[in-house]
């Protein structure tokens, strides 16, 4: 889930949004004896819907770590800033966190465009960012750890599942018109073609941000689906536009048993605003579901509900990514014995911590982590029921094997290679063969 809708309006709203932003609730002991942790999530504007939760998760994790005695004998101190869903403001706030507040690491961003906006700042000032959201790949920075899913940890297994278990032969790739859906669909299209799907069996459809009138598109999908072959929709539709889309599917009588929709941006939080009864059986692919049945996850949900004082709060995939990222950082700092950026960057690679789905996630040399992939079906209560999962963990693949420009690239931040885009054909660091 990257860039978001209506950002032109937001940009103008930045000044006011910034004025409304919180002052950092630094609840813990201040002074030289603390390690500062930056939290860079929008608390106002369009993305507040998704990002506010992540800020709360970070505060909970930090509080918990402090109860355990902090880190390296010091207390952790959260520094919360509000970039107000405004991409240039993300870069400014990141600079402020690193230069002024001197944070040791930052947890933040949701949209790809916000990550792209802060990336040069983190590289220039040599600081660490943990990015918790599934994204389109095609990037690997020395200073960023990607704890969300790369396309091969979400989109491709989902398509495999539909192909094998639902025998899908015709594909609708529907997305919002911006970088994440376009890149993901490009990868998926290449992948489907490599599996022998004919071009006439693929329909690609893009809609503007916040699209709310889905009647024509749903009718088109219905028509496309009546060619006598099993059809499925792969949806990279972003954020709010999903609700009217699913409502229209329900109204038009498109059931999951006829044309299943598998979504990559719809999680428990998004479903909380919809009556899910007409959506039962539609699918989502993530690396975590709240409904995953194991003791670690139950304990996490209980802690989360106690922390937010709301026994109906849901958990979702990016939250788990922050849990993993935070625990990895803690472990790496302990291993390095310091919060010095270069030492932590080296110590991070190879660190393994338990995830909430019953396994261990490891930080790989490409700064992506290993994760299981889960396919879940929407239930009547707004939760997902896991119907399939990969037998082992999947390593995040930053440079897709299905795109021309990126299939020869690898990333390895271990010395002596230390390169985010090493071309195995030319044997040089520095990108695609032109």
């Amino acid at each position: 889930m990257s860039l978001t809708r209506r950002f032109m309006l937001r940009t103008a709203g930045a000044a006011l949004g910034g004025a409304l932003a919180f002052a950092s609730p630094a609840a813990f002991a201040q002074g030289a004896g603390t390690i500062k942790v930056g939290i860079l999530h929008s608390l106002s504007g369009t993305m507040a819907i998704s990002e506010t939760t992540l800020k709360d998760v970070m505060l909970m994790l930090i509080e918990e770590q402090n109860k355990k005695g902090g880190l390296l004998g010091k207390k952790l101190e959260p520094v919360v800033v509000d970039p107000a869903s405004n991409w240039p403001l993300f870069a400014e706030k990141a600079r402020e966190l690193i230069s002024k507040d001197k944070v040791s690491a930052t947890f933040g961003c949701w949209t790809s465009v916000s990550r792209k906006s802060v990336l040069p700042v983190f590289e220039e000032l040599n600081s660490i960012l943990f990015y918790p959201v599934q994204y389109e790949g095609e990037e690997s920075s020395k200073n960023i750890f990607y704890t969300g899913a790369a396309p091969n940890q979400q989109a491709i297994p989902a398509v495999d599942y539909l192909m094998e278990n639902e025998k899908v032969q015709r594909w609708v790739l529907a997305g919002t018109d911006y970088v994440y859906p376009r890149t993901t669909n490009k990868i998926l299209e290449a992948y489907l073609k490599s599996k022998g799907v004919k071009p006439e069996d693929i329909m690609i459809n893009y809609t503007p941000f916040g699209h709310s009138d889905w009647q024509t598109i749903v009718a088109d999908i219905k028509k496309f689906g009546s060619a006598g072959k099993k059809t499925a929709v792969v949806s990279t539709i972003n954020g709010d536009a999903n609700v009217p889309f699913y409502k229209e599917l329900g109204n038009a009588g498109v059931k999951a048993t006829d044309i299943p929709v598998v979504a990559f941006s719809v999680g428990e939080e998004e479903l909380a605003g919809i009556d899910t009864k007409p959506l039962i059986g539609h699918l989502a692919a993530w690396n975590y579901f709240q409904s995953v049945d194991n003791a670690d996850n139950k304990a996490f949900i209980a802690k989360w509900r106690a922390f937010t004082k709301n026994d109906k709060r849901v958990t979702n995939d990016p939250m788990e990514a922050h849990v993993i990222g935070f625990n990895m950082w803690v472990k790496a700092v302990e291993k390095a014995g310091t919060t010095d950026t270069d030492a932590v960057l080296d110590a991070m690679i190879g660190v393994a911590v338990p995830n909430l789905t019953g396994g261990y996630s490891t930080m790989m040399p490409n700064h992506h982590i290993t994760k299981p992939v889960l396919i879940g079906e929407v239930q009547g209560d707004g939760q997902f029921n896991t119907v399939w999962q990969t037998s082992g963990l999947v390593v995040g693949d930053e440079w897709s094997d299905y795109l021309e420009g990126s299939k020869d690239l690898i990333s390895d931040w271990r010395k002596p290679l230390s390169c985010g885009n090493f071309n195995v054909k030319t044997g040089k660091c520095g990108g695609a063969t032109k």
Partner: protein
Amino acid sequence: MTFISRPARARAIPLTGPAAKSLIETLSFAAAALFLVMLALFAAPQARAQGDSSVIVGLSSDKFPDTERALNELPASGLATAPDIVEALAANRLYFNGPARKLYFADEAGKMFDAATGEPSDVMASALKKVRINNAVRRSLDAARGALTLMSPDPAKRKAAADSVFKSRDATALPLLDAALAKETLASTRKVLEEARAAIVAGDSGANEVQRLEAIDILKSRGDQDAVSVLTTIASWSEGRVKAAAESASSVIQAKLALWRNVQNVWYGLSLGSVLLLAAIGLAITFGVMGIINMAHGEMVMLGAYTTFAVQEWARTSHPGLLNYSLFIAIPLAFLVTAAVGILIERVVIRFLYGRPLETLLATFGISLILQQAVRTIFGANNREVSAPSFMAGSFDFGSLQIGYGRMWIIVFAIAVFFALQFVLRATSFGLRMRAVTQNRRMASSMGIDTNRIDALAFGLGSGIAGMAGVALSQIDNVSPNLGQSYIIDSFMVVVFGGVGNLWGTLLGALTLGVANKFLEPIAGAVLGKILLLVFIILFIQKRPRGLFALKGRAVEA
């Protein structure tokens, strides 16, 4: 006799192959007789006892393929509790005890029964696991439910059953279909049953050609997208005359559907137009008539939607009986709430800025951000769920056009709001004063009209109408703090295109833009369609700067 002979043949075919087709025809009578005897001799008492254990073992193994297989066998097993099991599974009330391989179902009240015998059981649901389902199981479940409810006394259920058999095209349901057909008296249900039967027969490579061609004719007369789907499947693997017939039938239907698609575009366009009209009509007062560039207009719509949510929450917790009618409470309440907020904004901010459009624009934009963040703080950043009342759910068919009740009522509501507003402006004393003030403020003032009060009330009226639009939009869009933003640009577009200051222009502008958008969308795609429309409006405004219906005369200069 027909009832027995068909299933006997259908079962025999896979064993003997198509070459033996004619032999089977002659043998079918004998086979039918044999089948009858078998049925009479042991099927009834014994198959039940055997069916029990095998079917239930499949359902209690917690593996999707086993569950699916068990469901496929269930309707034909003759198990007395089969309908209960299927209903319970559909309602997520089917439980199993893994180690003991026992199956239980709960009734609506939560009372447990042994699924094998149908006897009440005192086992606790908490000690058992629920039978899980996925889409494949759900398909089998629909088919089994269809087959088992074909004889239901409720005609609606029979029709739904026939529909699900049509979709599943499960050949084992054929005998049940024939039995249901023999008993069915209702013409409309009969038609669906026959179509379901045709869908099975046409796709049965073992059936004889004449019957298959007849079946294709029945499908052709059904003439909808589902029929095309069945026919193209058949055409893809059949040969000879059947293939040709299926292909021609599907192309005939598709040609007909292509014509209907134009009707569909008009309908979708009207539907989109009605939404635009609702969003814009309040703005037609505040911007069109009063000349205030009100950037907070979208937030009035959003407040109306949140009022709907609040009313529904209230109904859900304290008066569940009213939940279905909560929209009728929400409409006046949303009007009052947003009108009050509107009047407040006018009194506190806007009245100091009359005649200064740039400052008004900035101030109202600021207000819109404040309102958004206020709602975000009070209700949370997440979307809020507003449920659809029963009369707005579902759809009906008009020819080959599927019309959703929700969309239809929104069109009716938009038109009603439009005429109500016309009535207020034309036939009430307030409307008269308001028009007087907008046409010539000083003259109106010297005639004894309190122009300040009229300004506030007019702004309140425009805001209140936006609030009512929010009630309708809560049914189709998500109720979130950002709701209003998606409509503000479109609203201005409609008012400017229609002609500032003219309500009829707003009506025509909204409907024109809606229909144009829906005709462009299938050709150019949603993104390009919208761009083309904006380009068109820019060109149009160049040619006619005052929109479709320009006000003439002195009012223009006022």
